[in-house]
């Protein structure tokens, strides 16, 4: 098992190098000049050049890449070009909101989508099946920002159950935290629910045709036990896989949700940084997200072994 984890981590090193190099090149090829955003509208060419010089942006690309990777290896992610804040500080401030959003979204998604998928598979071909699938697919068919506006209109403006926007840390109390995170998480979950409910349904349909499900019924077990104990656990591997790859999908949703609900998270930081060409921040963020992606998928692969004893590493 540990050999496996070590191997996987080793194997992800080239992935990360590919990512780092790719991101670096892509960014530097992208037109845009952080000096221009710093200087504002009235700057003259000479003034811009002065700023570029002081930020080290006039160095050749190779030099910049070597400097950057050198810093990285010593754990230094640099400072934002624009606000001069250390990149790690910036990311640190934004981590909690995004993590909270992701986790609550995940909980809402799993709580809703798995029973939906199981139900649809169990009643395969029936009206219930079509209805469940239509509802979940509908969630997927509406752009996130529209879903967000609709939820705000209904729950925050008309019903006044939740505040319209903002984020409060869980350390400030459960209700302040929950009341602000629930709507964005629900918004984000709508995409995810569709994905996972459909995967659950497909995986369950596969499994429900298996002999051991028939065996379980032949033993006189109740349908609940048959579905959740026998079938669902066997369907877990493909479902978990989608949970993992869906992470990437979630990120694009996070960017939008964070804007609509004004949550100070990583998604907004990333978009701001890209629009401002704040290179050190973008590079760190992309390394971070791809790192998380790698780790999540590693965790998921490891969890397969717990779900299915036949899988050994």
């Amino acid at each position, binding site marked *: 098992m540990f050999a496996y984890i070590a191997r996987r981590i080793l194997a992800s090193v080239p992935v990360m190098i590919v990512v780092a190099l790719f991101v670096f090149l892509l960014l530097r090829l992208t037109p845009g*000049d952080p000096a*221009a*955003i710093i*200087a*504002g509208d009235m700057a*003259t*060419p000479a*003034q811009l050049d002065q700023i570029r010089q002081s930020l080290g942006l006039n160095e050749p690309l190779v030099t910049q890449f070597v400097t950057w990777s050198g810093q990285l290896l010593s754990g230094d992610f640099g400072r934002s070009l624009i606000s001069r804040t250390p990149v790690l500080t910036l990311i640190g*401030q934004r981590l909690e909101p995004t993590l909270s959003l992701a986790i609550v979204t995940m909980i809402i998604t799993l709580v809703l989508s798995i029973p939906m998928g199981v139900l649809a598979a169990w009643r395969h071909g029936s009206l219930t099946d079509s209805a469940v699938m239509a509802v979940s697919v509908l969630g997927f068919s509406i752009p996130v920002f529209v879903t967000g506006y609709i939820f705000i209109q209904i729950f925050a403006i008309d019903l006044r159950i939740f505040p319209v926007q903002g984020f409060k840390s869980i350390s400030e109390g459960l209700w302040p935290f929950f009341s602000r995170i629930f709507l964005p998480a629900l918004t984000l979950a709508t995409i995810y629910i569709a994905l996972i409910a459909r995967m659950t349904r497909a995986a369950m349909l596969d499994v429900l045709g298996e002999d051991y499900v028939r065996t379980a019924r032949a033993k006189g077990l109740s349908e609940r036990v048959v579905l959740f104990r026998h079938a669902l656990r066997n369907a877990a591997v493909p479902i978990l896989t989608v949970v993992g790859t869906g992470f990437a999908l979630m990120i694009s949703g996070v960017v939008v949700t964070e804007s609509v609900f004004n949550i100070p998270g990583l998604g907004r930081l990333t978009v701001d940084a890209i*629009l401002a060409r704040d290179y050190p921040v973008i590079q760190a963020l992309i390394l971070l997200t791809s790192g998380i992606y790698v780790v999540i998928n590693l965790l998921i692969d490891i969890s397969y072994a717990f779900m299915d004893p036949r899988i050994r590493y």
Partner: protein
Amino acid sequence: QEIRAVMHSGIRVLDPVITTAHITRNHGYMIYDTLLGMDENLKPQPQMASWEVSDDGLTYTFTLRDGLKWHDGGPVTSADAVASLKRWGERDGGAQMMFKSVESLEPTGDKTFVLKLSEPFSYVLELMAKPSGLPTFIMPERVAKTPAGESITDYTGSGPFKFVEAEFEPGVRAVYEKNEDYVPRDEPPSWTAGGKVVKVDKVTWVVMPDVQTAVNAINGGEIDFIEQTPIDLLPLLQANPELTVEVLSPLGYQTMARLNWLNPPFDNVKIRQAAMTALGQEPILAALVGNAEYMKSCGSMYGCGTPFATDAGSEPIMSGPQPDKAKAMLEEAGYDGTPIVLMQPTDVPSIAPQPVVAAQLLRQGGFTVDMQPMDWQTLVTRRASQAGVAEGGWNMFFTNWIIPEVWSPINNPMLNGGGKEAAWFGWPNDPELDEMRTKFAQASDEETRKTIAADIQAHAYEVVNYIPVGEYTIPSTSRNSLSGMLKMPVPVFWNVEKAAD
């Protein structure tokens, strides 16, 4: 008492000297004090310092008032002021012009310093008092010594608020707390002059990337103030009796088009004139603002309602789109159908609509237009390119100014004929203009200045230096619990009181 305000954008650059970004200027007014202030009659007034001018008008002696202290407790000295002015002189366009005529700028005591001119420059005080662009924010000498091309990292000021660095999250919020040690002047506040009396404990600038959200939030009482309310959404706010919607900066904004003098076809003055004839202010304003109450056509390059306002030479743009005339002019100029590369920033709502409408008007006027959508960052990079269109250059873009940034031939960044080296993007090479501008700076009486300003404008229209396409104002929204917001071009938070909601 805490005021939660949504400003027009998030603050990221914290150095009000390195950038002209409005949000950073506003930040500057929170934590720094300025040497001079400007009152609502556009007259320079003492703020940190009072002054005396020698009779020949070449020597200015400034004296700092008592009670000025840095946030870290140290006293403000003339050395600090001199260092700050010098850094300012390196970055501000007007100041650069002024410093060409400066012989020396030296402290003469703890509280006094002297500015000596080598030749007459009648605009010193106005420049030092100007409320926008780069105002004369005074920083401690150690901070002011930072090279002008590098951002400062020490945010010690002497202004009415202190910057809470620990709570600063770029793109999320900036927090200011009351500076208990600040000694305001005794005069009543008037623009940036007069007493800056802080009546709340704390001001938080919250960044809301989505205006919808901001509108919903103020309706729900989650924030107190929106600096710039999207005009189309006013019905949502005006219906709420708890809110006050008003224009705090009646001078408002000028929106304008700039043509690139270097690239064909706009290297040809006739074609530039045709473009101006094809455009019109009304349709562009309608698309941008859409509400007659907040927009007005204005032919003055210095803004309407300002001392130098004039409609000299503005006829071509003021008579609305004249497609047929433009076509005829193009014919005459021999326009060969070269496409106009018109840059459109998709991510900045206040500049996105102008190019879209302009593209249609220009096409109707016989131009071939290649409107290229891009993000603002790409645009600001690309507009700095002096290359030909094929090599990443451009022909035309739009931007906006607040009136105090354009209200005189000295301030107005576009009215510079310095060509490739010195002029603003578009690079008109126009020595005649520069000569007139120097004359303006040296003129001593108001009437002469006005005449020269009118001449400059007529000339600028003639050669199509730039094309103003109208003025607009943006209302602010505040909850009724806020009172005492000052009406001025810069949103400031002194004098504001907050009642329990």
